[in-house]
């Protein structure tokens, strides 16, 4: 295969490919956070869930040789973290934000502790789907190798968006998130709904973590997440608690995260670290733009402790 020089086209292509790669964990964590917050609870511990999911998924794939089993185990481990958060928050006078921060520390800490033996060995990766079979331009072929979890994430986003409108479970979650008193008056257990939503949200975040270690960057180490689980919280606010908008916002964050490597690929390495900080700067700008002391957040679930 002849190497074709694409010139400046390399940059948008690299950003496109990077956006898909980088956005996938954002997408899963933000969908998990969206589900949890829709039920009226905020789980800041998803950063810890993400890291622990990455470690447990990698360890499973290494031990069994099946990367998809790693994804499942990461999701189940995430559910356990969600359950712990849910159970503790059921106790009286417990603040979900504080518990979330504690769970974040706990999750990353225990992942580092248990994950030490897995930093060196090489686990099998998730396969990519090759959409570039029709082209002979190698850069395009690489860019069109898309990970299957990306499509799973889109499917989950659409399913959640549909379910919030069209299923009993979706309406109950929204009701619990917006008016706990009403949900209680109708005989639903607010604690149970939130517990289940937090557990399911933890599952999604765990799956997002497994993507980090099993696809991109594709290895387990302690600096793997670099705050993506926390940025997902900002992303949910930015997307106004709408799963479809979460997808768009995840792509935007992914694209921002891909700017640095894309520019480096055409030889611009000046300001590399600055461009790598793009997602963090984006988070900051979004928070400034969307949060104002004079206004409350439109579209926010009424029971959320940060908006009350």
């Amino acid at each position, binding site marked *: 295969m002849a190497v074709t020089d694409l010139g400046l086209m390399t940059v948008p292509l690299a950003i496109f490919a990077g956006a898909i790669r980088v956005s996938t964990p954002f997408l899963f964590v933000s969908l998990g956070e969206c589900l949890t917050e829709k039920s009226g609870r905020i789980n800041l511990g998803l950063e810890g869930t993400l890291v622990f999911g990455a470690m447990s998924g990698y360890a499973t794939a290494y031990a069994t040789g099946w990367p998809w089993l790693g994804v499942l185990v990461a999701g189940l481990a995430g559910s356990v973290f969600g359950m712990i958060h849910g159970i503790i928050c059921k106790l009286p006078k417990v603040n979900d934000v504080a518990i979330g921060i504690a769970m974040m520390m706990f999750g990353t800490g225990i992942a580092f502790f248990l994950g030490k033996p897995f930093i060196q060995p090489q686990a099998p990766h998730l396969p990519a789907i090759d959409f570039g079979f029709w082209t002979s331009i190698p850069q395009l072929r690489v860019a069109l190798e898309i990970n299957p979890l990306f499509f799973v994430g889109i499917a989950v986003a659409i399913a959640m968006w549909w379910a919030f*409108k*069209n*299923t*009993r*479970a979706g*309406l*109950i979650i*929204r*009701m619990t998130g*917006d*008016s706990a*008193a*009403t949900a209680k*008056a*109708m*005989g639903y257990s607010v604690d149970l709904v939130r517990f289940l939503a937090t557990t399911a949200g933890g599952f999604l975040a765990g799956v997002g973590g497994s993507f980090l270690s099993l696809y991109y960057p594709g290895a387990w180490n302690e600096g793997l997440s670099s705050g993506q689980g926390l940025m997902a919280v900002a992303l949910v606010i930015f997307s106004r608690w709408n799963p479809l908008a979460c997808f768009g916002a995840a792509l935007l964050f992914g694209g921002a995260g891909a700017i640095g490597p894309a520019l480096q690929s055409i030889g611009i390495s000046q300001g590399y670290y600055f461009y790598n900080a793009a997602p963090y700067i984006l988070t900051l700008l979004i928070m400034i733009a969307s949060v*104002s002391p*004079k*206004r*409350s957040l*439109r*579209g926010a*679930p*009424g029971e959320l402790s940060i908006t009350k």
Partner: protein
Amino acid sequence: MSETTPLPAVGIETVGMTKVFGSLRALEDVSVKVRPGSFHALLGENGAGKSTLVKCIMGFYQPTRGSLIVDGSEQVVRNPRDAMRLKLGMVYQHFTLVPSLTAAENLVISRPDCPNVIDWANEIAGIGAFFDKMPFKVPLRVPVSSLSAGEKQKLEILKQLYLDRRFLILDEPTSVLTPDEADEILGMLKGMTAAGELTILMITHKFREVNAYCDEVSVLRRGRFVGGGHVAETSTQSMAHMMIGDTKLRERSARLKAGDDKTVLELAALYAVDDEGLPAIESIDLKVHAGEIVGIAGVSGNGQSELVEVLSGQRELEDGRIFIRGQPFEPTRQHMDRFKVFGLPEEPLKNATAPRLSVAENMALRSFDKPPISKNGWWLSPGPMRDIARDLIERYRVKTPSPDTPIENLSGGNVQRAVLARELSGEVEVLIVANPCFGLDFASVAEIRSQIIEQRNAGAAVLLVSEDLDEILELADRVAVMSEGRITYVSPIGDTNRATIGHAMAGGH
């Protein structure tokens, strides 16, 4: 739900209902009979036991003694679910709709047999068919948060009917409605009761509504049933007497002719936004003269609370100026002190006090940085603070165990009196009052209204924001109506009437 056949209304009777909470007898041997198909009023002051009674009926409380008879047979209602089964329903004073859900979603999710996957085409058709049989409708597909208060109230009632409840308790159903909306809704419900489809037990304090719509009335006082009967045979005076007993109400202070006509408070083109960043008040122009009460009428949520917040410095002014005696006024502590601006906000415990500070400290919130409490501006002397508080407690008859009691331990009326004492004991140029009598008993209401009139007679410019039109008709010299953030109507009180003001209140909707 599409084949709802009109079932006969359900009637209930309580027999010797008694509820004791610890040492408090909230309800004592109350027997009330509500015939099927009747429109029954339940009257009583705050704390008379009305809500305890209906909560016992609805299964929120278990009565200590006594029983409930539904359609002729004795029933035990252990929880709201049992009440539901007996077709008993309740519309609460505070809305129980989920704001972010649409009306259709609210209706469908409230159904016990809500399907797991909702076929919206089918459900909307079903609700449409149900609405066709109802006297009023609401938009189905927009979030409830964007409905007007009247539409929300209608939807609450429709929800109960959609769930096939045939005995409805309405708790102060018209407090958030314009007079026209209240008449519309109550008139339609009256039609349904007359047709035998529904029985209504309405908690209210508006005698006008009792006289216009109710067939029968029961009055509670201090947990006991003190009288009742057919509304047609009961005069308003006797109902009022049953409610308050022999309590002496303070004589209303006479209204003196206003002396000087000088403008004191002038609002010039005020603009402010609400918490969502949307315009809350727009182009508010208003003058209040010395010795005048200007009443601002309107349905709640039309910008009145934002206006009060702007004037009391709790909300930023986007545009416009405020003048007092021709001088620019900023709602800062310094200016309020210099221009003698005082306020009685609604829900005083929340808006005008620090609940856990003592009565004395709360009474000193305006003066703690001045002599005699503070000689140099930063060192407080508790002695003078307590002396001043003792004097105020005596003069304003605040019932408190001591000046050092946290103010949150006082009853609502006494919190309002304590705030009144703080705000009105000095010289007052401008007084901003918002719903001052909300939730208070008759004696406190009479006291507070007299105090407001006295301030007016002493030459203060009073701006009175109230959702209670009767209060405005009674107190104001001029009335201004707010609708959708604007003042849409201004008139001297002598040249207008309830109907005209009511139409102006409905204005935008």
